[in-house]
């Protein structure tokens, strides 16, 4: 077993852990979006969807445990990697290398990730946590998500969601393709395929999520 410990202590091992958890989280986002789009189908459709999830509690709970572990592993190794990297360059340049050498979204993974994390805590507290106490068969989840104080009809809340989702898009703009480079499949043969799939994950999915606060907060 020591080899596995050695592996995840190595610089590349830590990145493999980040990349694996990051990709699995991206896959979760895709399924999460499919569910959320039911909001456009109206209160009845959305409530039925949440009730059907509540009816398979053990499966949902299992998924939640896995997701929590994924987030924890991703965040903890993210913090480690970031701190170690800061330590590796404790004196910075008078004129730091800038846009000629790196893209902004590649340089700001720790910042975009941290803001996504703050958003995540708020999001879980207001939606996931309040859902836990709603057991009755006619519980109106739609009302919480759309019409309550913390729902999308509040432009401040909608704006916060949009901002956080834009940062998530930036995070994935770098992160999705970066993960494949970390897995070692970054050579030119696969590059165009990875970049095409990446657009779906960094652009299409976040835009799908953003459409919800935009519609319920500002259009409707």
């Amino acid at each position, binding site marked *: 077993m020591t*080899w596995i410990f050695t*592996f995840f202590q*190595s*610089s*590349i*091992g*830590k*990145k*493999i852990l980040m990349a694996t958890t990051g990709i699995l989280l991206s896959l979760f986002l895709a399924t999460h979006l499919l569910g959320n789009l039911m909001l456009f189908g109206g209160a009845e459709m959305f409530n039925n969807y949440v009730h059907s999830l509540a009816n398979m509690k053990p499966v949902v709970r299992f998924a939640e445990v896995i997701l929590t572990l994924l987030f924890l592993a991703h965040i903890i190794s993210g913090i480690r*990697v970031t701190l*170690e*990297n800061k*330590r*590796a*360059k*404790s*004196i*910075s*340049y*008078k*004129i*730091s*290398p*800038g846009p*000629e*050498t*790196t*893209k902004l979204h*590649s*340089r700001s*993974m720790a910042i975009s990730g941290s803001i996504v994390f703050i958003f995540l805590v708020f999001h879980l507290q207001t939606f996931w946590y309040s859902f836990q106490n709603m057991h009755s068969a006619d519980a109106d989840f739609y009302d919480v998500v759309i019409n309550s104080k913390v729902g999308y009809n509040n432009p401040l809340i909608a704006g916060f969601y949009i901002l956080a989702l834009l940062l998530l898009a930036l995070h994935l703009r*770098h992160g999705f393709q*970066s993960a494949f*480079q*970390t*897995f*070692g*499949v*970054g*050579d*030119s043969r696969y590059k165009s395929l990875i970049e095409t799939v990446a657009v779906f994950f960094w652009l299409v999915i976040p835009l799908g999520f953003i459409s919800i606060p935009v519609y319920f907060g500002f259009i409707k």
Partner: protein
Amino acid sequence: MKITVQAWRQSSPTSAGEFVSYPVDNVSEDMSFFEMMDKLNNNLIRQGKDPISFDHDCREGICGTCGIMINGRAHGPLKGVTSCQLHMRSFKDGETLVVEPWRANSFPVIRDLVVDRSSFDRVMESGGYVSVNTGGVPDANATPILKNDVDLAFDAAACIGCGACVATCKNSSAMLFVGAKVTQYALLPQGQVERKNRVSNMVAQMDIEGFGNCTNTSACEVECPKEISVENIARLNREFLKASF
């Protein structure tokens, strides 16, 4: 041309350093950047001051000794060029050039612009070699190698170990250097015996030396004077995975 050089001055590894500005007059556009520095140093010597130390040897872009951060660009603003191959025509009359040593904790400053890159040497010692049979030299054509592999190995072998990749990387990661070195052996028949141990040992030594973790920003590829591709980093990851499992 008139140039102002704002150089990092530090008299020893432990002393505190500072930036000092020096005007340099009568600079010709055809001078190399180092000839301009030589001119500045001659001025300093004539004034009885310490010349600015900077590393250089071949001055033809092949030894990897030189390496200076100029206005935030490793080896200056040109692509695929070492500091010694840079000419003053790349700069404007009246420009201020901020010249700094490579900044990375694994490359401590020895004096002024000179850094200690022996961490790279220790990474090489840990695996950058091949076993050969003693005896007569084998016929060069006796071992067939795919053209594509030869090309990729040769592209990787162009790395001169200058450290610009580490210098420009916000994480001081040495993955481009190690990726190039691992690749040049992994793709050739001569490198097969130590293939797995080599990548494990070199990555372990790279970590011990305190280089940061690669976050794939690809700044290294932009600044590498030999234009080593980050595909070599992907190959390093792949080789490391294969050797670990």
